């Protein structure tokens, strides 16, 4: 092998431009593909963020009043009783929001009452009775709210925290506020100067929008405040097999109970998740397809230039073959040549990949490109180069010595 390096360098020096073009193309492909694959990975991991809810068993129903309702709290209690009695509905609750929903309610939670103190931004879930059984969230410490601890949101006085007997937080917030200790029984200040006791901790409770978790952290709280239907949504727990039938049944029941309201089309939480991430899915596909086409174009470019080289050097190959070089040696010559060019291109491509990643970090709040992507990208492009050069190299190796000399 070492014997071949000399002639390769000599030949490449005579074809600086063509060799340079291959190096450049490999470098660009390597830089782009490394970053694109990294971006795809980012999108896919974002899409897998758990919400903590039993997503495939949950249906969201929204009801709007056509005329301002005189007593929305009473109507909400009636609706919930009606929904719980429907066949196929295991449990129902009212909430101000659900993950992947349209609007989000967030606020600061602090462990000190002083004004101007640093607080943790959290998703504020305001939920009524049976929220725990309905949502499928898992309580890992403390207890659920007692029936007498719930309040109507409408009836809340100007003194925001007065009368709220307790709060349930997710594990992310518990660990942030009280690292290494149990949060149950501790007091926090959710957006006011009155302390509220932490009653329980749920294992996982997601932010409404995935972006919120990325920029404000994963904290979330549950307050025992019942919104009425005009400011909240109904959440139904159903068995996945019956889901579609129950959705229609629930819509019809709510339409019939009060004609002066508009019932929006029910939607499953699975569907809401899918809608939320549709743009990410689209972007991941786009990036993937472009990468694939990019690699094919690069491979075809290598095939084209290598074929040209083989034809141009057919006299040299014939001479070498006549002087006793084996087919294998000719084959390896072209493979080694491609390996050297690819390696140089990849080395330059890594530097460029890092540069592109820096630009993305500045403009898109992306994390640093993990080093593991670099060797994977390098191996992929080396393999691609070897595959592309195989055809032309075999054609070169197949050239018979005599015929070449005759021409």
């Amino acid at each position, binding site marked *: 092998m070492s014997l071949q390096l000399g002639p390769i360098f000599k030949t490449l020096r005579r074809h600086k*431009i*063509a060799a340079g*073009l*291959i190096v*450049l*193309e490999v470098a*660009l*492909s390597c*830089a*782009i593909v490394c970053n*694109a694959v990294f*971006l795809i990975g980012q999108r896919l991991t974002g899409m897998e963020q758990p919400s903590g809810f039993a997503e495939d068993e949950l249906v969201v129903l929204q009801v*709007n*009043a*056509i*005329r*301002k309702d005189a007593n929305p709290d009473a109507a909400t209690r009636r609706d919930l009783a009606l929904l719980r009695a429907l066949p196929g509905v295991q449990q129902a609750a009212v909430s101000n929001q659900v993950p992947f929903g349209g*609007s989000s309610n967030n606020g600061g939670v602090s462990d000190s009452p002083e*004004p*101007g103190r640093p607080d943790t931004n959290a998703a504020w879930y305001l939920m009524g009775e049976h929220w725990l059984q309905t949502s499928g969230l898992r309580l890992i410490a403390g207890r659920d709210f007692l029936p007498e601890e719930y309040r109507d949101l409408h009836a*809340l*006085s*100007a*003194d*925001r925290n007065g009368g709220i007997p307790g709060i349930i937080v997710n594990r992310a917030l518990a660990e942030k506020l009280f690292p290494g200790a149990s949060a149950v029984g501790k007091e926090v200040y959710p957006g*006011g*100067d009155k302390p509220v006791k932490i009653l329980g901790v749920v294992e996982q409770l997601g932010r409404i929008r995935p972006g919120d978790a990325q920029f404000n952290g994963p904290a979330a709280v549950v307050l025992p405040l019942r919104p009425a239907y005009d400011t909240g949504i109904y959440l139904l727990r159903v068995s996945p097999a019956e889901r579609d039938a129950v959705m229609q049944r629930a819509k019809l029941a709510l339409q019939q109970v009060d004609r*002066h309201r*508009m019932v*929006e089309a029910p939607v499953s939480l699975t569907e809401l998740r899918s*809608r939320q991430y*549709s*743009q990410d899915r*689209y*972007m991941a596909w*786009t*990036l993937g397809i*472009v990468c694939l*086409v*990019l690699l094919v*174009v*690069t491979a*075809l*470019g290598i095939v*084209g*230039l290598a*074929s*040209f080289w083989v*034809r*141009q050097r057919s006299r040299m190959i014939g001479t070498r073959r006549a002087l006793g070089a084996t087919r294998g040696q000719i084959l390896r010559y072209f493979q080694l040549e491609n390996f050297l060019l690819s390696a140089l291109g990849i080395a330059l491509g890594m530097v460029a990949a890092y540069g592109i990643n820096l630009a993305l970090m500045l*403009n*898109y709040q992306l994390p640093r490109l993990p080093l593991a992507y670099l060797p994977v990208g390098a191996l992929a492009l080396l393999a691609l180069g070897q595959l592309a050069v195989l055809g032309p190299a075999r054609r070169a190796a197949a050239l018979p010595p005599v015929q070449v000399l005759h021409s």
Partner: protein
Amino acid sequence: MFAYYLDLALRSFRANPLLTGLMVLALGLGIGASMTTLTVYHVLSADPLPGRSERLYQVQLDAGSLAYYRPGAEPEEQLTRLDAQTLLAEAQAPRQAMMSGGQVILQGPDDKQEPRSSDVRYTSADFFAMFGLPFQYGGPWSAADDAAHARQVVISRELNEVLFGGGDSTGKTLRVQDTEMRVVGVLAAWRLTPHFYDLNTGDYGKTEGLYLPFSTSRDLELPRSGSMNCWGKDHIVDPLALDVPCVWIQYWVELGDAAAVQRYRDYLNAYSERQRSAGRFERPPNVRLRNVPEWLAFRQVVPGDVKLQLWLALGFLLVCLTNTVGLLLAKCLRGAPQIGVRRALGASRKAIFAQHLVEALAIGLAGGLLGLLLAWLGLLGVRHNPASYAELAQLDLPMLAATLAVSLLASLAAGLLPAWRAAQVAPALQLKSQ
């Protein structure tokens, strides 16, 4: 001479169909991807109101509390209701409008029609003249109607079709959240992209179907939507009340020249100072006055993904171009013996150079046409994507011309190096080796 070079180019293509096809394909793919993403970018970053957007300014005041105060920090993007109503009453700009978005349930004249929900804009009389809304029938309501909390609406062309089956519907009534209102105007086709006057209720989606006086909306407590920020220690029972520390109103003014802008800025500073000495504002005056282009740039309204796709496609085009340079070079050198013959028969270096550039341009033209087809297909794909801007992605005449120009320029750039190399071929040497 050009025709002869073209003929030579065609002969050379016929001699190397695979290589030629490869070049055209690579160039076409690169051009197609670039023009698809460039068209989307071009559509999304276009001036939403040409000739008007430079004169429209969004007003920001700093009404926040001292609790989280950082001097010079960006003030809230929206105003409190009290500030907006006061500025509107003082009317220091030639035109001004306060507004908020909402979603209401509508019922048409026909009882059998299902109620439907529609996006609505609650605003004041100048809105229509400021943003240049075109009327098909009737016109806007007046400032007197604002003061009278009139039950009047302006509806979009689409809503007019749905509720009244088209035609002049002025004077007809519809029910908004069960309150009867009279149609005073029907818009002609109008879509604002991006929806810059309130980016929190959609950016590139559909524009509202219904417009009614802000004063009326508060009278009837109609539901609102969009962004809202409140501060202070107390729980706010009604954040939509007149004097509470909540910002949720967008406020726009129309101003003439730079001097008028400066006068209005001075007025806003003086207003803030007045509010501060009255004890309402806690912070020193901190106002912002951005016109539409500045506002769009500040809010970075073109989606990050669109820019990312543009960069990706340009990178892809660069790879395709490198590829084309390489293949053109290979083809030129493969044809070296013929070049030698032509040189020996008296063709100058310049002639050889020109001949190869024409060949590159021919490939560029073919690649450009293929790219155009691919861009058309690509945009078809974009229109099926889930984003709100999807249906806006249409190829227009300037982009069509740009596509061909870019591909010709790109092929010219790609052809320079190979043509130069071809021109270096010495006549005698090549003849000897034959």
